């Protein structure tokens, strides 16, 4: 009976044992209010008893009302509630949003790959703009970090997409006849550009340096909600004399990005290229960087052509089934494909 060894008053000890609290472990998971109710003592006294018990059992702290056993652990219940209330970044194409469960998720790494010209950079720029949509319109109201390794980011296109996004918000206002001032924050296209932190990198060492620097940068800019890397592959497809080094570098990068996503609760989007893999006598299209890299991302979307239409295929997801959705790249950015196309196709 460990409780009997606690340095507390005899009356408290007696009350504990008669109420059923005979071991220290039973005290580690009860809240002070509950304890005071059971023992019919004041809450302060209950807190005192719990403090003594925790000191004895050697655990660092007992949180009030929190049933955590270890620091940093979370109950699945809390996680579910957090996930349900989290907002996704819309892709501006409702069909694609549907297969993604709402859009690009925060706290996760999403990899998007496809052939040149399919719209990877377009989607990257669209996400960098959409993350800035204020919460009044269902967005995150955050900022974006865009790491450009290929020089594909064209400011004129970003301004064009930002203008269309601002236009959409105005139309939404008019549709719902919203008069409240809070929703009237119509941004100028240039304002969207100011909220994109653009890094241009030209070598793989710069790429690694920037990704290592992101932790510090994001701690100073807490409103960054998405990190887009366009593309993650390019600098690693050159000759590496030491392939083991390449694998180590890629692995380190993947870990850093996953940690960033979890730590700062933001979305990490990695744009990847495709290459051909010789498999059982035929050539198959596959994402670059090899099989070990495929573990780096939580979600994977493959953009591909189907006849004359562009499709997004959700290839890997921890909670959603594989599905395909058409989308179009228009002057306004990524949008739904024309109405006569097939809708969402579930695999």
């Amino acid at each position, binding site marked *: 009976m460990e409780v009997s060894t606690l340095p507390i008053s005899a009356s408290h000890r007696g009350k504990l044992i008669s109420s059923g609290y005979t071991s220290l472990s039973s005290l580690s998971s009860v809240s002070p209010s509950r304890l005071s109710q059971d023992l019919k003592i004041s809450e302060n006294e209950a807190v005192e008893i719990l403090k003594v018990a925790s000191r004895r059992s050697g655990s660092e702290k007992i949180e009030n009302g929190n049933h955590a056993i270890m620091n940093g652990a979370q109950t699945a219940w809390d996680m579910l509630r957090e996930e349900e209330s989290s907002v996704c970044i819309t892709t501006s194409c409702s069909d694609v949003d549907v297969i993604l469960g709402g859009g690009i998720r925060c706290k996760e790494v999403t990899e998007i790959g496809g052939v040149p010209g399919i719209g990877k950079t377009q989607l990257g720029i669209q996400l960098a703009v959409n993350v800035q949509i204020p919460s009044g319109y269902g967005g995150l109201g955050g900022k974006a970090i865009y790491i450009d390794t290929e*020089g594909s980011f064209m400011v004129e296109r970003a301004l064009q997409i930002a203008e269309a996004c601002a236009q959409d918000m105005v139309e939404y206002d008019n549709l719902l006849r919203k008069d409240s001032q809070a929703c009237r924050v119509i941004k100028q296209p240039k304002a969207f*550009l100011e909220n994109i932190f653009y890094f241009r990198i030209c070598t793989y060492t710069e790429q690694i340096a920037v990704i290592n620097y992101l932790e510090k940068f994001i701690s100073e800019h807490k409103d960054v909600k998405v990190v887009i890397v366009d593309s993650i592959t390019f600098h690693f497809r050159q000759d590496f004399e030491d392939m083991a080094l390449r694998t180590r570098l890629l692995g380190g990068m993947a870990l850093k990005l996953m940690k960033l996503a979890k730590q700062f609760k933001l979305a990490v989007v990695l744009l990847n290229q495709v290459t051909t893999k010789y498999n059982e006598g035929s050539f198959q299209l596959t994402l670059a960087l090899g099989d070990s890299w495929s573990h780096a991302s939580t979600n994977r979307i493959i953009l591909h052509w189907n006849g004359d239409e562009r499709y997004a295929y959700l290839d890997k997801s921890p909670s959603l089934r594989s599905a395909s959705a058409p989308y179009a790249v228009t002057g306004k950015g990524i949008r739904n494909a024309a109405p006569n196309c097939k809708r969402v196709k579930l695999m």
Partner: protein
Amino acid sequence: MRPEDLLRHPLPTQTPKLTLGCSLLDRLLGGGIPCYTITEIVAESGTGKTQLSLQLLLAAQLPVSRGGLSASSLYLHSEFPFPFRRLHQLSLFYKTDLPHDPLERIFVQTLQSADHLLDLLPRLDFLLPKLNIKLIIIDSVAALFRGEFENTPLELKRRSSMFFKISSKLRFYSHKFGLAVVLTNQVVDVMQSSDNLRIGNSAFFCSSGRRVCAALGLSWANCVNTRLFMWREEERVGEDCESFERMQTRRFIRVVFAPHLPDSSCEFVIRREGVLGCIDDNGQRK
């Protein structure tokens, strides 16, 4: 080099562009060839790639107010011979606009192979600022790789590796010095039966009545930012007095993929003054 130095914030609201010397073609490209990126022109021989390249070499010297870059150009060519006479003929049309002899601001270097190009690129660090070069044209990239690599997986991997090395270096200098980089590429025939990998705005492209696609494959397509396709068609325009069919060559240019341009195309002609876009009979740019 600190990571903070790699941040460009706030972003400029416009990318500098190089005019093609024709307002219709400029409109196709949203203002002209953009700086800081790599633009590729894919075409069959004899369509007009080199003609357009020569025009760009001269246009780069125009002042910025006229759409030029106010700078010299570098022409790296792997196909022989160098079209000096045509360049000279074209330069006569620019003599009035420029205070100096345009030919003095064009630097030419022949390329023997891909390795030769890789050896040459580090020298650009020194040459580009010294000679105030803001345009580099490589005509053509495909010729550098033809015939040098065998068709084994290992060799193809090595070739693909070289693509990324070259592209990486070109992008580095393009970013560092604000260059416009233009590469020309050739076409290869596409067999009807094979699974054609679709890259860009059309499932297949035709030139001179044959199905073609860009040379150098999928890896190389990842190494350029913008790809333009030029092609020509033979069109029957009627019969002449001896009932022979009269054919006319028509030339077109189209955007295959670009981060800032929609799918659009334009007809053009090659005149003495150079490559000019043309409007169709309905008065619209096609």
